[in-house]
């Protein structure tokens, strides 16, 4: 009885939802979801109860979707919205009107125990077997060498910023990171928060969604970002004035993410905020992601990524050269798009 009452109380709270966006997502879905007060979009699967798959995730990115699914804590459930994907136990919704109530009902059912929490898709085993040598899995020489669980220990590499040789970290980021354009998977090598190398594993999906609100969110203005996303009936003039008053533009470093035609993040931010329908005419024939991102810190890189519209970003991904395969020749699942070899351009800023 007591648990029942608690479950009912919990079911009245906002539903924490993590969004996984696929191809051919319903038009203006982010705008629609932002207008539902009962939902709260969270930035990490660890804080979510419902995984909402919008559109169809292509076959190449299904392993990533499975990993994401398993990272939600119990009790959890999945909703496929206008999606042709197949996930065991997931609920399928096709019309935009039903989505809010469907999520709300599923969440309260989940909390009341009427719906079972979804089990893991991946096996409960380490991704690779233990192959360490020393007592802590290291190769035996300090903390260097060895491959515990199939992942080599971090080694030092030349630093781009101030010459301090520190450990590097290489990982695939995306495609469901909230600060990444949907579908984009980048293999980044980081030293601290400085990006050392960039390779495109999967280009972003083709959408016409406006990333302006993400830029505002990244600049630390979540309320203004929500306002832009919802498109509140405050009128164009008042939003422009608010955006100007916050001086968000000044928070973007001058000359950040300059393409070869001279436009930088500030210019593209201005264009996104002005709600002009005409696309910004960018000439991106020679600009690759390596020119734009290498040497930037993480927060700057995210501003650069979200300042482009999807079509431009896809062109830039196509211009990004494939990395030279050095000592580790096991880059098996890298299927890059386009790789026109333009070489690296010095001076990214």
């Amino acid at each position, binding site marked *: 009885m007591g648990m029942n009452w608690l479950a009912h109380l919990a079911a009245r709270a906002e539903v924490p939802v993590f969004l996984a966006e696929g191809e051919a997502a319903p038009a203006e879905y982010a705008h629609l979801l932002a207008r539902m007060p009962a939902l709260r979009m969270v930035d990490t699967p660890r804080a979510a109860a419902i995984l909402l798959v919008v559109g169809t995730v292509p076959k190449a990115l299904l392993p990533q*979707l499975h990993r994401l699914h398993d990272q939600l804590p119990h009790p959890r459930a999945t909703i496929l919205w206008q999606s042709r994907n197949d996930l065991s136990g997931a609920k399928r919704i096709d019309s935009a009107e039903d989505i809010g109530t469907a999520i709300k009902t599923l969440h309260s059912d989940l909390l009341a125990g009427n719906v079972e929490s979804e089990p893991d898709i991946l*096996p409960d085993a380490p991704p690779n077997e233990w192959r360490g040598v020393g007592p802590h899995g290291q190769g035996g020489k300090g903390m260097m060498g060895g491959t515990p669980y199939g992942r080599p220990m971090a080694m030092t590499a030349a630093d781009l*910023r101030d010459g301090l040789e*520190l450990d590097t970290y290489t990982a695939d980021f995306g*495609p469901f990171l909230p600060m990444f354009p949907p579908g984009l*998977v980048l293999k980044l090598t980081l030293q601290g928060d400085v990006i050392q190398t960039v390779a495109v594993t999967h280009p972003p999906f083709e959408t016409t969604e406006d990333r302006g609100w993400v830029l505002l969110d990244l600049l630390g203005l979540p309320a203004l970002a929500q306002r832009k996303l919802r498109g509140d009936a405050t009128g164009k003039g008042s939003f422009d004035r608010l955006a100007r008053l916050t001086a968000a533009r000044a928070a973007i470093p001058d000359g950040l993410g300059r393409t070869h035609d001279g436009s930088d993040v500030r210019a593209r931010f201005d264009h996104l905020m002005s709600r002009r329908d005409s696309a910004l005419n960018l000439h991106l024939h020679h600009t690759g992601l390596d020119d734009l991102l290498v040497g930037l810190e993480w927060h700057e890189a995210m501003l650069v990524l979200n300042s482009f519209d999807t079509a431009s970003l896809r062109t830039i991904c196509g211009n990004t050269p494939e990395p030279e395969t050095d000592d580790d020749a096991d880059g098996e699942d890298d299927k890059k798009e386009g790789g026109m070899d333009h070489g690296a351009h010095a001076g990214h800023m």
Partner: protein
Amino acid sequence: MPTLIAIILIFVLSLGFTVALRAGATASVTYPQKRPILGGGDPETHAWQRFHVRYYTMTLLFVAFEMEMMFMYPWAVVFVEEGPKALAEMGMFLTILSVGILYGWREGIFRWE
């Protein structure tokens, strides 16, 4: 007596909460849940690595000013009794600290990066 009761009560309550939390924890964490959250991506290198604490020069600056302030409060009382002698001593102390700040300046602690 009230103190004793309070201590016992705190002890019993904390024990009670610990037991209740342990009983409430059900599923253990599985391997898929132990992965770092990269939006579905997978790491290639081990996460055990050295990281540069870039604010260490700032701590140098903090220590220089903080020690100065720490000694100045009791010194204010001594100054009333001793007069110019205490002033001269504090002057020497501040000079030594300023050398530290000048050294920090040369090392670039006023440059935010």
